């Protein structure tokens, strides 16, 4: 059903000098501690990472709860901040498709889609035989997902030992890791343009609309980068 050799190859991407384990640990430990402060119990904190597994959305949820937002407002705010997962899935899954693989694998494993697993898969899919790429993805996904859940629990349990300076230190790890990964991915003109323009437009549009900034910045910068790439032949 699942090619175990390729699956473990995916799982093993947690090891080595390009491992996402440290940034994942840093941000989910911080999240666990934050959820405890927000009044969650241990089971609820673990369930949040188990079922949502998307850090920016979980942060929005915790902050919205603290200011007493309604469930509908939380739903919309989370949808807007996590909408990035839609173009991310569409730009990854066609690379993993093979007609011999059952559809349920794709429908279930899309839950593993997060920035870290996406960047790893985009970085290494070419090395994997097309037929088994989805099993590689499931390996990457299970590894990063379980790390996130485990670290949320550890963060929750160690909340009282973490002071504010340590929490600030943990919070920078994630953006630093992702920036490095993205710079590593800037291999052609359209992706480079997309990354640079997105970085500029994201904060700029945020000044006008906090909720819609990601969607607009992504669409505008991405479309300009696409047209630019088409005109320059890449």
């Amino acid at each position, binding site marked *: 059903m699942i090619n175990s050799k390729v699956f473990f190859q995916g799982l093993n991407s947690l090891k080595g000098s*390009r*491992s996402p384990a*440290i*940034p994942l640990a840093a941000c989910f430990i*911080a999240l666990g501690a934050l959820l405890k402060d*927000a*009044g*969650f119990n241990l089971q*609820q904190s673990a369930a949040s990472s188990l079922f*949502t*597994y*998307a850090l920016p*959305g979980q*942060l*929005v*949820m915790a*902050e919205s*709860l603290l200011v007493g937002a309604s*469930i509908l407002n*939380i739903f*919309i705010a989370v949808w807007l*901040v*996590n*909408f990035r997962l*839609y*173009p*991310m*899935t*569409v*730009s*990854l*899954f*066609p690379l993993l498709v093979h007609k011999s693989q059952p559809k349920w694998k*794709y*429908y279930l494993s*899309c839950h593993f889609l997060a920035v870290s697993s996406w960047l790893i898969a985009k970085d290494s899919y070419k090395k994997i035989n097309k037929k088994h790429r989805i099993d590689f993805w499931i390996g990457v996904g299970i590894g990063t997902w379980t790390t996130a859940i485990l670290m949320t629990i550890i963060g929750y349990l160690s909340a009282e030992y973490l002071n504010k300076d340590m929490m*600030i*230190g943990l*919070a*920078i*790890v994630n*953006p*630093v*890791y992702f*920036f490095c*990964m993205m710079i*590593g*991915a800037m291999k052609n003109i*359209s*992706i480079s343009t*997309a990354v640079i323009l*997105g970085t500029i437009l*994201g*904060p700029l549009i945020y000044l006008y609309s906090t909720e819609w900034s*990601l969607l607009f910045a*992504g669409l505008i*910068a*991405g*479309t300009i*980068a696409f047209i630019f790439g088409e005109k320059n032949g890449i």
Partner: protein
Amino acid sequence: MESNIIVLAIVATSLATFISRFMGAITSEKVSVKSKVFNWFNCVAYSTLAALLGRMIIFPAGVLSESLLIIRILVLFICISIFLYSKKNLVLPTIISAILLSVLTSV
């Protein structure tokens, strides 16, 4: 905080997140790797991600907002330089970023 509200919030957050992933999986069935649509989605995905990261550094939420912007940008540039000079090692810059920002913020 009431337990029911927390559970409902977790359900709402998980659904709102899974919708985007699942719709992505469905759309993917119709998108060919060689098509222009795929390239466009690829650019939009990288841009959206970059926008999120730019926002996390310039207008962060939570504890990170208690550090100075100039220090965050400094740490980011130092760590990207380490990444580039260490043959794209990712463990080193991430560990150093945490230590550097903790130390610079506490002094």
